[in-house]
């Protein structure tokens, strides 16, 4: 029988290496997935350039962060990136509205097949990716400043007297708080404001929305604005947490799509739930449980292998496998999205 302290230690260990990171990563995915779902249900195409749009928003934030730092416009202890995010959102909004005006609008007005627009969005994806790499270069960049930890593992150990520590990074706390705020605002907007309701109406029944006098252009513009906000925040939070490199953002596309489909394509709540399903599965399946079980099992039964279900290299493969399973078992996703 493990002692109470051992159980506590095992739990703290798991929290530190799996639960907290999964929560953070899930929140970042959720914002991206929500953006994909909004585009999907209102503009009616799967936006393949989402991940690269996130990279773009982050790139703008990094440039602005550098500028602010060089001007000395910083608050000590506070990530400068968060200070400049509103500006980056403005730039990203402009950029997305330009793609809408120059690219997507034509297909929307001409009632193009959804798959054609998907193809177009892949063109946009490569242009955005090229633009970002042209500006930022391909290397990894760290742009988080201010305090790295709210509390470190050592501080936690000293405080609790346990042998395992639970560190809380600034990036983790900001991610969770900011994601909650952003998601809350988006839901409030969709449920309570007039234009938000118009967006839902438009997504539900486009013809009837037109018949109610809803201005489609305004709905579309508002959608891109929301998407820009979500996209930039998601990108910046991911970058603060893991550093910025264009390729890593590109890799996010698969988990984001998986989140959307797992949750039910077109359902905002589904996107969020899906994101956490993906992030927790990724983390839980790739974690090596050896130490965890050493705490819980009697010495005689202690495991000698790593007890890792899947190598960390296959982190992104997890989302694909979950995606396939959902398509096989319940193609509508958890929250009954649109299948056909």
């Amino acid at each position: 029988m493990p002692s109470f302290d051992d159980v506590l230690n095992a739990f703290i260990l798991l929290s530190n290496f799996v639960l907290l990171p999964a929560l953070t990563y899930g929140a970042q995915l959720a914002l991206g997935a929500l953006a994909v779902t909004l585009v999907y249900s209102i503009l009616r195409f799967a936006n393949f350039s989402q991940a690269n749009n996130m990279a773009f928003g982050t790139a703008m934030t990094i440039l602005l962060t550098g500028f602010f730092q060089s001007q000395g416009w910083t608050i000590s202890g506070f990530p400068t990136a968060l200070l400049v995010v509103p500006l980056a959102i403005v730039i990203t909004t402009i950029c997305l509205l330009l793609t809408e005006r120059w690219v997507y609008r034509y297909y929307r007005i001409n009632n193009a097949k959804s798959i054609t627009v998907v193809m177009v969005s892949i063109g946009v994806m490569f242009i955005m990716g090229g633009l970002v790499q042209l500006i930022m270069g391909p290397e990894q960049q760290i742009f988080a400043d201010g305090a790295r930890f709210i509390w470190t593992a050592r501080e936690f150990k000293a405080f609790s007297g346990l042998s395992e520590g639970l560190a809380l990074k600034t990036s983790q706390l900001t991610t969770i708080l900011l994601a909650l705020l952003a998601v809350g605002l988006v839901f409030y907007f969709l449920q309570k404001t007039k234009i938000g309701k118009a967006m839902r109406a438009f997504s539900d029944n486009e013809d009837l929305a037109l018949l109610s006098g809803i201005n489609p252009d305004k709905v579309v513009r508002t959608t891109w604005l929301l998407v820009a906000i979500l996209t930039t925040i998601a990108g910046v939070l991911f970058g603060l947490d893991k550093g910025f490199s264009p390729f890593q953002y590109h890799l996010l596309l698969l988990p984001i799509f998986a989140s959307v489909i797992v949750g039910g394509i077109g359902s905002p709540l589904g996107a969020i739930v899906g994101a956490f399903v993906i992030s927790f599965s990724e983390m839980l399946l790739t974690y090596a449980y050896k130490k965890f079980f050493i705490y819980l099992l009697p010495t005689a039964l202690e495991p000698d292998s790593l007890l890792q279900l899947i190598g960390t290299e296959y982190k992104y493969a997890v989302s694909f496998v979950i995606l396939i399973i959902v398509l096989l078992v319940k193609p509508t996703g958890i929250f009954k999205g649109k299948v056909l």
Partner: protein
Amino acid sequence: MTYLTGKNLFATYGTVPILRGCSVGVNRGELAVIVGPNGAGKSTVMKVLLGLLPISEGEVLLDGKDISTLSTQQRIGLGLAFVPQNNNIFPTMSVAENLEMGAFLRHDDCQATLDEVYTLFPILFEKRQQLAGQLSGGQRQQVAFGRAMMTQPTVLLLDEPTAGVSPIVIDEIFANILALKEANKAVLMVEQNTQQALSIADKGFVLVAGKNAHTGTGKALLNDDEVRRDFLGG
């Protein structure tokens, strides 16, 4: 010249001609009914009047002004309202939100109109928080009708407003349509209840294969032998 007029309308889906020179019209304070066999193009006439489908020839006039180049949204702004035959609600929004969407272009207080709708269809008040997609077919039809009333239109276009509705509610809807007509609105309606509809209509248009087969007052059409034989089954 009537208040809302569609004159010599031609329209196609892709390359298939559907409307081939039909004309309809309705004045304020008047109820006009379009009848005809399935696939005659009745719904298509409605779409054309609202700008949901472009016309290749002919014109759509409102109060003497050509509106055939205006967008749907602009026509709604001019006082047209439409209850489509199918997909006429927002399924994932609540009944109250559906009605609210009807009042989207209004900036005044629409509580009075809302109360009117609720008194007319008490079931909607009861179910106002429920998702419209979860209602029965007849209840949806009431939501759709209520949504159109919320715009406070001057011209109301109804595509089979009574389809799937129980006889009592049909009577209510017809009574309400007559009330709207009394309130000096123009009402243009497609109906399958040909007999009942023509008997309360001021005007009737019998559409066959995209053309007017017969036109006249409701009474005249009801008494026309040919119309009786071909469309009223007896």
